[in-house]
């Protein structure tokens, strides 16, 4: 089986002053390449922490984590940055676009950090924006776009580097249900076309229903994995 994510006994302990908070108490999971997975759980269940670790934004206190064939649990800051750049695309609840620059430059940003030259960069950014249906909005700034359009720009940005996984953290949380469904359709569509693994963190059960697998967390442990 072609596993894109293999995590074993992930634990994460935060020190809040004197108190130790156990956000993850030993999470093991595997995700197939091309799969669509939802991570659910009440607040405080550790799902954000798990997403940060799976997205290589943070390191586990202990445990093993292999992403797309590379063991990443013990890498340094700059190596993690490199992994994020090449293998992970992020979609955030609040879009997180740079408001000063055009949609095109926003989508280009990951390519800049990848060290790709001007010409190739613009071409790939255009293609990504076309793929999310924003071919006619490339030079617009985020403030000139609707919420749904902004999230589309963010999705284009997440897939411009052809990542192994896309991590979407409440991607429809700031949108009304109609636009939210459009975004979900777009993400699922991209998954079908490109085969990019999609991991959605949410507490919206209507989203969970649309995915092949739901991982439920409670108190830092996997409660249900079907």
């Amino acid at each position, binding site marked *: 089986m072609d596993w894109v994510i293999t995590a074993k006994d992930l634990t994460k302990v935060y020190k809040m002053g004197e108190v130790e908070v156990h956000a993850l108490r030993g999470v093991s999971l595997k995700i197939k390449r091309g799969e669509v997975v939802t991570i659910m759980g009440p607040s405080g269940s550790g799902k954000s922490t798990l997403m*940060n670790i799976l997205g290589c*934004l943070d390191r586990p206190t202990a445990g093993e984590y292999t992403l797309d064939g590379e063991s990443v649990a013990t890498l340094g800051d*700059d190596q993690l940055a490199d992994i994020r750049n090449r293998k992970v695309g992020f979609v955030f609840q609040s879009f*997180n676009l740079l408001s000063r620059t055009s949609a095109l430059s926003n989508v280009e940003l990951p390519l800049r950090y990848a060290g790709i030259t001007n010409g190739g960069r613009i071409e790939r950014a255009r293609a990504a924006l076309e793929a999310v249906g924003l071919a006619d909005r490339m030079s617009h700034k985020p403030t000139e776009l609707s919420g749904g359009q902004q999230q589309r720009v963010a999705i284009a940005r997440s897939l411009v580097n052809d990542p192994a996984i896309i991590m979407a953290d409440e991607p429809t949380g700031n949108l009304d249900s109609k636009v939210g469904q459009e975004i979900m359709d777009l993400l699922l569509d991209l998954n079908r076309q490109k085969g990019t693994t999609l991991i959605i963190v949410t507490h919206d059960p209507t989203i969970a229903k649309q995915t092949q697998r739901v991982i439920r967390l409670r108190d830092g442990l996997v409660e249900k994995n079907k």
Partner: protein
Amino acid sequence: MNLLQSFLEALESLSANKLRSGLTILGIVIGVAAVIAMLAIGAGAQNTITGSISGIGTNLLFVFRGGTSDTVRNPRPLTLGDAQAIADPFAAPDVEAVAPILQGNGELVFGGQKDTATINGVTPAYFSVRNYKVTEGEVITEEHILGRASVALIGPEAADNLFGRHEGIVGETIRIEGQPFRIIGVLESKGGGSFGSQDNVVLVPFTTAQARLIRRSTADRVDVIFAQAASSDSVPRAIDEISGILRTRHRTPIGEDDFTVFSQEDFLQTAQTITGVLTIFLGGIAAISLLVGGIGIMNIMLVSVTERTREIGLRKALGARKRDILTQFLTESSLLSLFGGLVGIALGWLIAFIVGRVAVASGTPFTPSVGLNAILLATLFSAAVGLFFGIYPANRAANLEPVEALRYE
């Protein structure tokens, strides 16, 4: 990311906050302008002072009464005899010409106009030694000396004060200290110098001054002896010869000279030292304002880092390494200060130019000069200020944890 890209991006984010960037730049502008202007004014002052010292004559030596050592209590005055002894070509072969003078202040009157000017009693040698030329008329001759003639040469400023012009004056009679003197010539302008105006002056024959204008307790006393060395190489030998002659005549032991011999070079060096110290002092004060400007940059960059924490988090999530973030913020701060530096150079130049104009308008010919080294110094220094004061904020940005930064509200 390459340098050009980070340069463009920095430009973009600086122009997003135009007022703030402008005010930050202003701090550097003022600092650099102050440094440039002060250095220019210092260099200009140095040029003017050395120029006016050089204008006194060439290879000049000045002999004054009084020694530099504390043990000399009652220095003997210099006399005409001393001057004649120095002029002896066998005793002092390296001294080419000697010009003793008597110096005093006096009131000049012509018609209803009055002027207080320096009165110099001089010998014919004075004109060649001091490099004085006349714009009209003639200079004082041996005959004037022998005859104690009531004739005078007048400086252009004194002429302006009395006549309202400095041409066509020869033949007029003015009163100096109440006594009538016929004007036989008008002196060329020497310009305002660091020793007061050299143009508000009348020159009269030495003997006339001695007998009728400047009375001294000792009969043949002189105030200053000007001597001219044959060449610049012979200046040190001429000093030794003059000192030897005067020691013998004044019967003073070595080390207790009751006279002082200065060379023009000594004056030049002293003046250069003084103006150099002045320039450093002014430049140093100006540099403090540059430092304050740098702190302004640091302050704004810190605000900017805090404000853009989420942006930094996002960039890190998208794959920015520490170095990328560091470069981004350092580029911004250097750009701020470099831009401020360039504007500051222009402003400093303008200030120096205006100061020069004001000086000329008020009668002091004085040209501030903006040196290439001052410009280089200011540019490098301001860029360095930006880098230095940008390091701390940029480091802070680069070391943010991506998770924390993304969560920041």
